[in-house]
């Protein structure tokens, strides 16, 4: 998964490097051109003054030393000349023992020539006529100082450019981050929603995200109201079916039926089947499962009331306890969780001798819910069988044998894991691991 921030940063870095590099190199090249053109006119003047210094004396044509610039006489001074006059080659004294080749072309030479002491020479050649003789004069100037200046300038530009680039990247990072802050807020809120720490998204201040947030909120409201409507409808359906069933159960106690015991028994059996099926399917249809992302179960608020209810139902002085971190919230629907814990604890209360304990823990990978009792427990060999669907764990004590089946349904709808083990209290330990969702 790429981040928008990184992508924008990378694109900016590449374009800045390309543009900056081209600009710096291009301006250096233009500057070099301009400088050489400027030096060319100097060198031409130089060549012309050398031409004027060629005079005819009694001994022949010669160069008048006094009129020539003194730097031509100082060895390796950086200024040199070559004069080819009618096949005769004159070299400036400054060349000393360095052999400088006479270029064949005229004008400013494109290539710098190698000079003495590692110098790079800018060479200008021009053909003339003097005293009736063909003269070819080449003047050279050491270009090294300029090259060194260029190198310094390049280094400076590189350092400056790198600093500027860093500054720009930081500024861009800040700009992108502040532009993306609303997105980050929405992301955090979605995460809280997933963990059940909020039930709707807050409206953000940027117009681009507003419709998205509104749509999500609308969807949440819609899902929640659909769930409530269907729960309500199921409640009504249950009411409509269960009251007549209750009437039938009471009618079966009539003396008229007592006279036909076999008939009464078989009617009773069938009614039990209907009731069982009804409870199971209505129970299953009520489950929210993972429909609502904002759902949560606040342990400290809900568990004590549930335990009070169980103490009232099992009024035989059982010691009911629960342990959980303060402020612990499970990211699952409240009613589902109450149904799950209610059934497990109810079951434990039926079997317990004196103690039932509920433990809720938030671990690294999962939420762990444990219901333990000090009753007879279940043999390890029979636990697998008990876990099978529809198995009647609580067959021998009052109840419908439905508890564990509904628990299974809830556990499945959560994608959680149910295991039965031996409790340190002596009885059964039902352990449910609810995996944490990836943040």
């Amino acid at each position: 998964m790429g981040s928008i921030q990184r992508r924008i940063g990378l694109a900016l870095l590449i374009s800045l490097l390309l543009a900056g590099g081209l600009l710096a190199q291009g301006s250096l090249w233009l500057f070099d051109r301009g400088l050489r053109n400027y030096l060319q006119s100097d060198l031409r003047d130089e060549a012309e003054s050398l031409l004027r210094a060629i005079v005819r004396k009694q001994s022949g044509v010669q160069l008048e030393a006094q009129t020539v610039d003194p730097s031509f006489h100082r060895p390796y001074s950086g200024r040199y000349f070559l004069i080819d006059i009618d096949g005769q080659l004159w070299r400036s004294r400054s060349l000393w023992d360095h052999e400088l080749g006479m270029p064949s072309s005229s004008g400013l030479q494109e290539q710098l020539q190698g000079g003495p002491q590692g110098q790079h020479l800018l060479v200008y050649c021009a053909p003339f006529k003097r005293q009736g003789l063909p003269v070819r004069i080449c003047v050279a100037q050491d270009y090294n100082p300029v090259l060194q200046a260029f190198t310094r300038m390049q280094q400076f530009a590189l350092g400056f450019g790198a600093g500027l680039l860093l500054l720009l990247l930081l500024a861009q990072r800040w700009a992108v981050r502040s532009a993306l802050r609303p997105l980050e807020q929405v992301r955090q809120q979605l995460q809280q929603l997933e963990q059940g720490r909020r039930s709707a998204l807050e409206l953000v201040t940027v117009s681009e995200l507003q419709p998205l947030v509104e749509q999500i909120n609308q969807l949440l409201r819609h899902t929640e109201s659909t769930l409530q409507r269907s729960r309500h409808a199921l409640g009504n359906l249950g009411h409509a079916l269960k009251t007549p069933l209750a009437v039938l159960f009471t009618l079966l106690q009539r003396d008229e039926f007592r006279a036909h015991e076999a008939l009464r028994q078989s009617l009773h059996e069938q009614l039990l089947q209907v009731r069982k099926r009804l409870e199971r399917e209505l129970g299953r249809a009520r489950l929210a499962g993972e429909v609502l992302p904002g759902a949560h179960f606040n342990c400290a608020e809900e568990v004590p009331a549930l335990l009070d209810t169980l103490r009232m139902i099992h009024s035989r002085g059982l010691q009911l306890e629960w342990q959980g971190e303060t402020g612990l919230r499970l990211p699952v629907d409240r009613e589902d969780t109450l149904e799950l814990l209610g059934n497990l604890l109810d079951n434990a209360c039926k079997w317990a001798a004196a103690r039932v304990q509920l433990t809720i823990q938030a671990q690294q990978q999962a939420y762990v819910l444990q219901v333990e009792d000090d009753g007879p427990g279940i043999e390890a060999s029979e636990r697998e069988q008990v876990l099978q669907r529809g198995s009647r764990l609580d067959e021998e004590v009052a109840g419908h044998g439905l508890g564990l089946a509904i628990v299974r349904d809830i556990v499945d709808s959560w994608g959680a894991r149910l295991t039965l083990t031996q409790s340190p209290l002596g009885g059964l330990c039902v352990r449910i691991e609810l995996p944490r969702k990836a943040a």
Partner: protein
Amino acid sequence: MRLLLVEDSVELADSLLAELGRHGYAVDWLADGRDAAYQGISEPYDLIILDLGLPGRPGLEVLREWRGKGSNTPVLILTARSSWAERIEGLKAGADDYLSKPFHPEELLLRIQALLRRANGLSNQPELVVGGLQLDESEQRVSLNGQQVELTAAEFRLLRYFMLHNGQLLSKSQLSDHLYDGESERDSNVLEVLVNRLRSKFGKAVIETRRGQGYRFVGVR
């Protein structure tokens, strides 16, 4: 024991009235939440069986009103809404027990017995054992030192009330309030006759008479 049944299904109420009557309870029946809200605290009921889906006013609201007005009559909620979330809500509103429909009549009778014993400070045992007598409420039989003693339905009702209020002074009007439903004829002579019949079966000292005040069950010495 006088009970109030608040239930809007006529068929269920009919069959429950018959069943409860057979087990020696005097039962008044109401189908509307508004009537129940008034009558539930104006009459001296020993226990109220309350349906939640009532016409007029919702059952939970009626229950909250009773509790808000200081009534502590035991209330057993009888409802088709059987989820744990709804049970918790019911008990938070002040109910003492919760039975979901459909149910076995025996289950309802056991819950009523347990609630009445609890309300009168007795522990929950299969049989009511008070003052040397052992009362089997489902079979309506009593045994004294292991000897079965036969009881008529009226004697059973009175003896159960006495046993649940062991050692308490009970006036005649209080006794008739709790033994007969709102529509029965009340005749204090009938009570005297019944008390005397119980004395003849278990000994004269079993019930004391306080002249002008009423009776006190002290049990068999």
